[in-house]
C-alpha cells in the first residue's frame, strides 16, 4: 500500500504553489532538523542504554535486581508526556520553577525527553547481548588477565554490538516517527512538516509527496536492520553460569537512583501535583479511558491474530517464502504514523463513509504495528522446533487442528508478549489516532496532546497518569518475564 501511494503521488496532480514553497523554503530545514535530532538522540540514548545495561550486567550493588527492572519502566511514558511534563517542570508553575532562567524548550530539551523515552530499547537489547554471549567473552578476557573495564571494552562490547545496533535502529525509527514531543517543542521535523502541509496548507498531495522521503528512509533503516542482523545475533541463550560481578557498592545504586529521579520520580511527582490542583472531570476521564481501552484491545487482538496466523502458517507451509517477501511487511514499522495516515487518506479519501471510521484507524494501526507482532511471535517461534508441526503435517492432521492443539499452546509466550507490546503501543499512539479517529472519538493520548498544546498542563495531567498507569501494568509484566526470571 505505501509503495502504491508513493507512485500515485508522483503521477497525480499537486498544488504547485504549495509544493514549490515547501520545496524552496522549508524542506531543507525539515530534513536538516530531522537529521540533527536523529544523531543527537541516537548518541544520548546509546550512552544511557549501554551504560546502565553494562552496570546491571557486570556490576553488583545494593538493589541491583530491583533497579534493573525500574530502568525499563520509562517504556510506559510516551515521549509527548515527558515533553510537556518537563516543559512544565521548568515553567513558572513547575517544581523546578526556580531554574526558569534555563530554557528547556530547546533542541537539547527535546533530545533529553526523546532519549528518556527511547533509551529502554537500547538498554533491553544491550542487556540481552551482555547476558548471553557478551558475558562469556568478558570472562575469557578476565581469565587472560585484563582489567574489568578492559574486559568489557575488548570482550563484551564488540561481541554485543549487533544487539546494540538493533536497539539503535529501533530508536532511529521511533525518533523519525515522533510527532507529539516535537510538536510540543515546536521543532519542525519532516513528520511535523507533513502534518503542517496537510492541516496548515491543506494540501494532501504535497503531504503525500513529502512522505516519500520518510517512506524511503524507513525502508532503508528496515533493510539495514535486516541486513545487519543476518547471521549476526549469534544466540539469545542467557549464560546459565552466573558471572563473577564486580562489587560497585552504593555508588552504582546512587547513580541509578539519581537517573531514575529524572526518568520516573520527577515526572510522576509533577503529574500528581498538577492533578491534585485541578478539578478532575471523572465522567470525561472514564469515557476517554474506555475509548482508549476499546480501540487498544480491538487493535491488539486483531493485529495479534493476524501476526500469529502469518507465523503459524509459515511454519506449516510446504512453500518456503523468500526472506525478502517475509521481511516486506516489516517496512510498515519504519513508517511514521503521520505518513501512514497520509497514505490512507490519499488512497481512500474518495471512499464514502470509510474516512473517519474506527475500521480505517485499526487498518492504520495494522500497517504500523503488524511487523511488531510478526517479529515478536517469530522470535519466540525460533525457540520451538519446526518438528512439532512437521510431524503433525506428516500424519495428515487438519491445519486447523494443528493451529489449535500445537501452534497456539507452543507459541503462547510469543503471542502473549506480542499482545502486551501491541497494547502498550496503541494506548500511547498519538499521530494516527489524532488524524484518523472518528469525529468526537477522543482517547487519552489525543486529549493529553490537545491540553498540552494549549499549555493546560494541569488538565493534561490526569489522562497522562492514566496512560502511564495502564502502560505500567504491561511494562511490569514484560519486566517480570524478561528480567525477573
Amino acid at each position, binding site marked *: 500500500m505505501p509503495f502504491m501511494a508513493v507512485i500515485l503521488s508522483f503521477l497525480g496532480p499537486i498544488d504547485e504553489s504549495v509544493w514549490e514553497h515547501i520545496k524552496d523554503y522549508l524542506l531543507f530545514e525539515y530534513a536538516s532538523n530531522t537529521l540533527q535530532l536523529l544523531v543527537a538522540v541516537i548518541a544520548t540514548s546509546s550512552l544511557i542504554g549501554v551504560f546502565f545495561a553494562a552496570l546491571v550486567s557486570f556490576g553488583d550493588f545494593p538493589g541491583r535486581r530491583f533497579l534493573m527492572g525500574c530502568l525499563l519502566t520509562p517504556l510506559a511514558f510516551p515521549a509527548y508526556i515527558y515533553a510537556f511534563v518537563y516543559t512544565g517542570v521548568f515553567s513558572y508553575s513547575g517544581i523546578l520553577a526556580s531554574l526558569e532562567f534555563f530554557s528547556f524548550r530547546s533542541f537539547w530539551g527535546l533530545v533529553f525527553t526523546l532519549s528518556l523515552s527511547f533509551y529502554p530499547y537500547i538498554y533491553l537489547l544491550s542487556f540481552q547481548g551482555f547476558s548471553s554471549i557478551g558475558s562469556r567473552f568478558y570472562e575469557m578476557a578476565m581469565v587472560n588477565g585484563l582489567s574489568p573495564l578492559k574486559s568489557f571494552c575488548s570482550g563484551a562490547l564488540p561481541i554485543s554490538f549487533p544487539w546494540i545496533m538493533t536497539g539503535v535502529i529501533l530508536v532511529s525509527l521511533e525518533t523519525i516517527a515522533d510527532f507529539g514531543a516535537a510538536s510540543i517543542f515546536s521543532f519542525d521535523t519532516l513528520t511535523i512538516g507533513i502534518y503542517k502541509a496537510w492541516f496548515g496548507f491543506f494540501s494532501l498531495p504535497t503531504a503525500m509527496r513529502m512522505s516519500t522521503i520518510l517512506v524511503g528512509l524507513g525502508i532503508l533503516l528496515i533493510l539495514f536492520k535486516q541486513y545487519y542482523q543476518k547471521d549476526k545475533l549469534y544466540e539469545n541463550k542467557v549464560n546459565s553460569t552466573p558471572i563473577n560481578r564486580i562489587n560497585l557498592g552504593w555508588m552504582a545504586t546512587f547513580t541509578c537512583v539519581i537517573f531514575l529521579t529524572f526518568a520516573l520520580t520527577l515526572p510522576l511527582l509533577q503529574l500528581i501535583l498538577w492533578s491534585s490542583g485541578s478539578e478532575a472531570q471523572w465522567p470525561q476521564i472514564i469515557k476517554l479511558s474506555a475509548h482508549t481501552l476499546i480501540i487498544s484491545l480491538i487493535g491488539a487482538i486483531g493485529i495479534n491474530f493476524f501476526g500469529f496466523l502469518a507465523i503459524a502458517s509459515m511454519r506449516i507451509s510446504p512453500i518456503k517464502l523468500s526472506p525478502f517477501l517475509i521481511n516486506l511487511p516489516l517496512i510498515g514499522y519504519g513508517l511514521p504514523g503521520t505518513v501512514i495516515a497520509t497514505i490512507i487518506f490519499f488512497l481512500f479519501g474518495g471512499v464514502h463513509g470509510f474516512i473517519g471510521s474506527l475500521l480505517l484507524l485499526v487498518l492504520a494501526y495494522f500497517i504500523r504495528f503488524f511487523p511488531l507482532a510478526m517479529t515478536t511471535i517469530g522470535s519466540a517461534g525460533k525457540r520451538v522446533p519446526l518438528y*512439532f508441526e*512437521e510431524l*503433525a503435517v*506428516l500424519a*495428515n492432521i487438519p491445519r486447523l487442528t494443528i493451529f489449535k492443539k500445537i501452534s497456539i499452546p507452543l507459541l503462547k509466550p510469543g503471542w502473549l508478549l506480542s499482545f502486551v507490546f501491541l497494547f502498550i503501543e496503541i494506548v500511547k499512539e498519538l499521530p494516527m489516532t489524532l488524524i484518523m479517529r472518528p469525529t468526537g472519538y477522543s482517547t487519552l493520548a489525543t486529549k493529553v496532546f490537545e491540553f498540552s498544546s494549549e499549555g493546560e498542563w494541569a488538565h493534561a495531567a490526569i489522562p497522562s497518569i492514566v496512560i502511564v498507569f495502564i502502560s505500567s501494568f504491561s511494562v511490569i509484566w514484560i519486566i517480570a518475564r524478561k528480567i525477573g526470571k
Partner: protein
Amino acid sequence: MLEIRDLELEVNKKRITKPISFDIPCGELTCLSGPSGVGKTTLIRTIAGLHKAGSGTISVNGVCFVKDGKELVPCHLRKVGYAPQEPSLYPHMTVKENLSFFLRGLNLETQTKRIESVIEQLQITDKVDCYPHQLSGGQAQRVAIARAIVNDPQILLFDETLSGIHTELAIKVGQIILKMVSEKNIPGILVSHDLELTKKISPNTCVLNSQGLKRS
C-alpha cells in the same frame, strides 16, 4: 519396498552428494551412517517429503512419491512414520495425548487399542500419564518411536534416534525398532553417525558420503 533411483540431494540449490540409488525391502531395517553434514538427515527428510528432491525417483510399494525430482505425492499423504533427531514430544501433552493426537479421525476404541498395543511393545505402560519432562532420555526416545509407529505407517524413518542415550540402551532401543519393522513388514531406515553401533543393531548398514551411498 522403498526404491530410490538417482536421487540427488540439494541444500540451498547446491548438490551435496552424487546421485543415490538403493532399495529396502519390506521388513528390513537399513542403518544409515556417515560423517556429519553429509546429508543423512536431508535424505530422510526428502523421503518423508519435508525437503525437496533435486532430481531422481522415490517410490514405496510401487507408488511413486517423486519422479524426476517432481513431487507426485505430498508429504501428508505418504503415510510415513518419522522420529526426528530430538524426541520432539509435545511438552504440553501427556504421553497418551502425544500418541492419541496422531490417531485423530479414528474412533475412541480403536485409538485405545492402538495406543495400548504400542506402549506394551515399548514397555512404557506406566508412563502414559506422564508429561515429557517427567521422562528419562531413553523413555522419551521410546515414546517418540511409539508415536512414529502408532499411525500404522507404510515406511519408518528414524533420525539419530539413538544419539544421546548410552550404548547399552541404544542397542536395546535399536533392537526394538528392528522388531517393529519386521513385525509390521515395512521398510525402515535408522540414521546414526555411529557406524559401530549400527552394525550391532542390523546387518544391513549403508554409509553415505559425498561420493554417494555404499553398502558396508
